[in-house]
C-alpha cells in the first residue's frame, strides 16, 4: 500500500513538474535582437549571462542577442538579412537610407500599437512628435527613435595657464579670439624659447558624432559661421529657403578663417591633418586653443598633463560675431534607432518586444544592460552608478553590449559615465563639462537636415563646396567679388539648385519647415 502510494506520489509530482516545465516552454517567446556592439573591443555576452535567465523567468522571453558588425558592414548584413526575409525581430539601424528602404520594401512594422504597451519608455523617449517625423511614413511610426544624449559635447578649449602667463583675457568675440590666437602663436606661451606653438588647432572633419558638420570646412570651423549666423547647411527660412553658403555672411565667415590662416595662427598642416593628428598635437601642448569633444578630451588628458604638467584648460563659449551672434554649430536630436521587423509582428511578438524594451528602460533591466554586474562591474554609492575600473573594459564591456538600449542620459547616469577624474593634480568633473558644452554652445537644432535625401551626385557636390572653400581659405584663390561669384555660379554645374529644391520640399513635407 505504502509502496503504491509512493509510486503514485512520485508520478503525480513528476507529471506536475513536467507540466509546469512544458507550460514554461510553451509560454516562452523567442525574441531575436540585433544591435551594434556598444563595446566593439569586448566579446559578446557569455551564454550564462544573467540577463538571458532573468528575461526568460520574468518576461517569458527567450532572448537571442547578436551583435551587428560596426560601420557600413552592419548595413550590408541587414540588407542581406532583409533580402532573405530573415531580419531579426528587433534591431538597430544606423543608416536612415537603409531604414527608408526597408520601410518601402515592407520589411518593417509600424510600432504605434506597441507604444501604449511600454508607457514608461514611450513617455520618456518617444514622445517628441518632431523627432518622430524622421521615422514616420504615411502617418505610421516605423521605428523607436531615441533622443540623443551625447551630442553637443564639442567646444573650443583654451589654455588658461597661457592666458595667465601672457596677461590675456578669455576671448569672447571673434576679434578677441584673433588677438589671443596671435599672441599664443608669437609670444612663446610655453616659454621654451622656440616658435613652436599655434593659436588654434582644428581640422577639416565631417564626423557626425552628435553634431552636423554642414557643407564646407566641417564641424571644427562651424563656430565661425555660427558667429555670423550661418551655421549649418540650410537657413531654414520658410519665406526664402536656401543654402547658407548663398548668404553674404557666409563669405564674411570664410574671410575670417582666411585671416586666421594668413596670420599663421592655425597649425599650417590643418588642411591635411586628421582628427588623430589634432589629438596628438594638442596633447603635446602645441595649441593655445583647439576644437575637441569632452570624450576626446577625457581620453587624452593623461597624456596631455604628462607633457604639460602646469597646464589648465577652460571651455570657451562660442565667440560672438559682429552682430553679437554666436553658435558652436548645429546638431540633430535623433539618437539610436531601433526597428521591428514585420515578420516579428506577424508572428505575434509585438507584446514581447514592448515588454523587453520597457524592462530595459528602468530598474533591474536598465542596470543590468547599462552597467553590467552589480558589485563587479559597478557599484551605486549615493545612487550614482560608478564603474569599477579595476575590471578592464574588454571584460566588463561584454556585459554591457546592449547598454544603448538602456541608457537614457538621466543626470545620475551622466555622473556615472562622466565622473570626476583627477589627472596631473587637476580635477575634471566630466559630466559638468559635458553639460557646460551642451548649454553654453548655443547649438542650433537642425534635426530636419536628416530628412533631406542625399543627392545622386552628393559626393561631387560636397567636394565642390569643400575644395573651393579650402582654396579661398588657403589663399590659393583670393576672396573677391569675381571669384566668389564664380564659386556661387559654379554650383549650377553640380546641380545644386535641384538639391536645394529637394531639400526644401523634404523639409516642408515632413513639417520641419513651416
Amino acid at each position, binding site marked *: 500500500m505504502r509502496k503504491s502510494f509512493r509510486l503514485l506520489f512520485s508520478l503525480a509530482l513528476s507529471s506536475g513538474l513536467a507540466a509546469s516545465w512544458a507550460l514554461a516552454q510553451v509560454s516562452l517567446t523567442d525574441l531575436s535582437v540585433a544591435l551594434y556592439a556598444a563595446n*566593439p573591443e569586448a566579446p559578446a555576452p557569455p551564454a550564462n549571462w544573467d540577463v538571458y535567465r532573468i528575461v526568460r523567468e520574468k518576461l517569458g522571453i527567450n532572448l537571442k542577442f547578436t551583435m551587428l558588425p*560596426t560601420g557600413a558592414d552592419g548595413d550590408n*548584413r541587414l540588407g542581406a538579412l532583409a533580402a*532573405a526575409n530573415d531580419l531579426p525581430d528587433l534591431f538597430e539601424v544606423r543608416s536612415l537610407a537603409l531604414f527608408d528602404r526597408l520601410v518601402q520594401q515592407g520589411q518593417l512594422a509600424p510600432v504605434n500599437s506597441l507604444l501604449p504597451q511600454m508607457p514608461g519608455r514611450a513617455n520618456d523617449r518617444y514622445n517628441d512628435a518632431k523627432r518622430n517625423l524622421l521615422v514616420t511614413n504615411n502617418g505610421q511610426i516605423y521605428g523607436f527613435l531615441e533622443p540623443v544624449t551625447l551630442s553637443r559635447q564639442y567646444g573650443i578649449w583654451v589654455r588658461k595657464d597661457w592666458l595667465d602667463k601672457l596677461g590675456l583675457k578669455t576671448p569672447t568675440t571673434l576679434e578677441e579670439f584673433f588677438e589671443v590666437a596671435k599672441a599664443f602663436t608669437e609670444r612663446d606661451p610655453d616659454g621654451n624659447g622656440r616658435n613652436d606653438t599655434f593659436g588654434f588647432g582644428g581640422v577639416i572633419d565631417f564626423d557626425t558624432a552628435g553634431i552636423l558638420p554642414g557643407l564646407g570646412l566641417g564641424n571644427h570651423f562651424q563656430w565661425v559661421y555660427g558667429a555670423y549666423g550661418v551655421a549649418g547647411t540650410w537657413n531654414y527660412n520658410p519665406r526664402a529657403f536656401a543654402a547658407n553658403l548663398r548668404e553674404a555672411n557666409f563669405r564674411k565667415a570664410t574671410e575670417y578663417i582666411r585671416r586666421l590662416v594668413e596670420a599663421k595662427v592655425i597649425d599650417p598642416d590643418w588642411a591635411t591633418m586628421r582628427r588623430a593628428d589634432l589629438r596628438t598635437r594638442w596633447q603635446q601642448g602645441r595649441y593655445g586653443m583647439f576644437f575637441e569633444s569632452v570624450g576626446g578630451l577625457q581620453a587624452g588628458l593623461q*597624456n596631455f598633463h604628462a607633457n604639460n604638467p602646469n597646464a589648465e584648460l577652460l571651455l570657451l563659449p562660442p565667440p560672438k560675431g559682429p552682430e553679437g551672434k554666436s553658435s558652436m554649430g548645429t546638431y540633430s536630436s535623433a539618437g539610436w534607432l531601433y526597428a521591428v521587423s514585420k515578420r516579428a509582428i506577424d508572428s505575434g511578438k509585438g507584446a514581447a518586444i514592448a515588454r523587453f524594451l520597457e524592462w530595459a528602460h528602468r530598474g533591474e533591466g536598465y542596470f543590468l544592460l547599462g552597467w553590467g554586474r552589480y558589485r563587479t562591474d559597478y557599484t551605486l554609492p549615493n545612487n550614482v552608478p560608478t564603474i569599477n575600473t579595476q575590471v578592464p573594459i574588454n*571584460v566588463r*564591456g561584454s556585459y554591457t553590449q546592449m547598454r544603448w538600449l538602456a541608457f537614457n542620459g538621466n543626470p545620475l547616469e551622466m555622473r*556615472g559615465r*562622466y565622473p570626476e577624474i583627477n589627472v596631473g593634480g587637476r580635477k575634471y568633473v566630466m559630466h559638468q563639462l559635458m553639460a557646460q558644452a551642451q548649454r553654453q554652445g548655443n547649438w542650433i537644432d537642425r534635426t530636419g537636415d536628416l530628412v533631406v535625401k542625399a543627392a545622386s551626385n552628393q559626393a561631387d557636390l560636397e567636394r565642390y563646396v569643400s575644395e573651393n572653400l579650402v582654396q579661398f581659405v588657403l589663399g590659393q584663390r583670393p576672396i573677391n567679388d569675381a571669384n566668389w561669384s564664380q564659386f556661387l555660379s559654379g554650383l549650377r554645374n553640380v546641380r545644386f539648385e535641384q538639391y536645394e529644391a529637394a531639400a526644401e520640399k523634404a523639409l516642408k513635407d515632413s513639417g520641419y519647415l513651416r
Partner: protein
Amino acid sequence: MKKAMSRGDRLFEWTIDAFLVAVLVVTLIPMWYVVMVSLLPFGKSPSLFIPPWEWSFEAYAQLVFQPTIWRAALNSIVLTFGGVAISLTLTVMAAYPLSRRGLPGRNFIVGLILFTFLFNAGLIPTFLVVKDLGLLNTYWSILLNGAVSVYNLLVMKTFFQSLPESLEEAARIDGANDWQVLWHVVLPLSRPILLTIGLFYGVANWNNFFEPILFLSDRSLMPLPVVLRDILTGLNVAEYVEGGAAQAAPAEALKMAAVVLITLPMLLVYPWIQRYFTKGVLIGSVKE
C-alpha cells in the same frame, strides 16, 4: 670565357640596379613607416624615424592582451588551413581532368566555369544559397563559399597541361588508373604550383573580412581581421569614451600595430615558399 662587358652594358646594368633599388626603397618606406608608427609613444608625432630608446610597445600590448584576440587568431588559423586544404583539393580535382585532352565536353565545362568568372552571382543570391544550405553562422559558410577560384583553377590546369604526356602514358602502361596517375605522377611534379596556389588561397583566407561579417553572427567564430577592426573601432571612438577608459597608446600606433600583427604571419611564411613561388606564378606566361 666570359666576355668583358662594354661601357654601355655596364651603364645599362647600373641604371637597372639603381631603378630596382629605387623601387625597393619606395616599397619599403610605407612598411617601415607602419612599423615605426606602431612603436609610437604618446606625445610624439608619427614620423619615419623614432629612435629605439623611445619605442613603445604599448600598442602591441593593448592589442595582444585583448581577450578576444587569441580566439580570433585560432579562428583565422582554422579558416586559413582548412580553407587551403579544401580549396587545393577541389582545385586539383577540377584542374586535372580539365587538363586532359580526352575529357568529353571539356571546352564546354571550361566555358561554364569561365562564365562564373565573368559574371558572379552577387551578394544577395550568394547569401540566400548559404542560408538555404543551412551554413549560416558556421565555418563552412566561409570555407565552401568561393572555395575554388577560377583564376587559380585555370593556372593549375595550364600547369598540368605542361607536364609531359609520356609520363602519364608510362604510368598507364604500368597499370596505373586515373587516381594513381594523379597521386603518384602528377602531384609530386606539381609542388611549385601547389605551393603557389596554396599561398594565394592562404592569403585570401587569412585576410578574409567580408564573408565572416556577412555569414557569421556568433562573435566567437570571427577571424582576426574582423576582431582587430572591432578593437580599433572601440578604442578610437573617443566621443563615447567612458570613465576610466583613457587610451594607453596613441590611436595611430594601435592601427599600425594591428596592421603589423595581421601581416606578420604571411610575411613569415613567404620566404619558405619563395623559390617555388616564382616558378609557379610564371606558369602559362610563356609559350615555347
